[in-house]
């Protein structure tokens, strides 16, 4: 299925969860923050949320800046 990931189209398996998406991208869940369809996933909240076609996912991190 296709989702929108960080504003771009992204193809992933039908059973993808936020957790498996992060693992597929090789991202450390401790170092990123995820928004799923504009809902912020707070620390400690389950990442086992299933994604559906057309979902919007944002994955952000802290980077250098002033």
């Amino acid at each position: 299925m296709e989702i929108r990931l960080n504003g771009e189209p992204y193809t992933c398996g039908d059973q993808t969860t936020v957790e498996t998406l992060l693992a597929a991208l090789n991202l450390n869940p401790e170092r990123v923050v995820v928004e799923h369809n504009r809902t912020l996933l707070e620390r400690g909240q389950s990442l086992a949320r299933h994604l559906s076609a057309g979902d919007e996912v944002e994955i952000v991190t802290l980077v250098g800046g002033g």
Partner: protein
Amino acid sequence: MTNDPLRIGKYTFQSRLIVGSGKYKDFAETRAALDASGAEMITVAVRRVNITDPARENLLDYIDLERTTILPNTAGCYTVDECVRTARLARAAGINDLVKVEVIGDDKTLFPDAEATLEATRILVKEGFTCLPYTNDDPIMARKLADAGAAAVMPLAAPIGSGLGVCNPYNLRIILEQATVPIIVDAGVGTASDATVVMELGADGVLMNTAIAGAREPIAMARAMRLGVEAGRLAYRAGRIPRKLYATASSPLEGVVR
């Protein structure tokens, strides 16, 4: 004189220098400059992860979070919604509730959108954030931001990255005179003497990024800034002499061999 902490909300710092983490050639240089600056607070930005090439390393892996407080910013935001959303994302990173509230009004000057900054600050204060809004050197806005619950107010010395130094010391003096919360001068410093001037005016602290990261030798400049901030703070507390038009002799007038 030695115990002169800076208090912002529930946070306490011994250093009055706050540094940015942008524009360094790598994370090791960022860390070395942070160490040389003596700063206990460092700003960071919130950005999308590069999906096609996720970074192997994270800035936070290079910062000792035991002795360094992270100050996430909302840099790059042009609307209240973007700013509030970015602040929430930053807090969800689970580090703290601090946010440098930054809503830009124009991409050429990077001057803040005062109206949007105030609105975003009101919203974020209500949500429990410790807000440090970046603002113009406007005494009225500074007062409104403090009244809105900002834990500190951060007027600019000059445009971001310009290195022009304090452009309007008179406005900063008015802001400082009426301040009810700490005033951190943020942006526009070019070299160590600029930081000293800021502190001599009575600012509670100074925040800079480009002046250090853009110097030919960032780590040496970080140390220069540390000393400049300390010198300015000490001079402010020591109390400078009044300016006079004519000379006053330093040596006794009597007993001169003629």
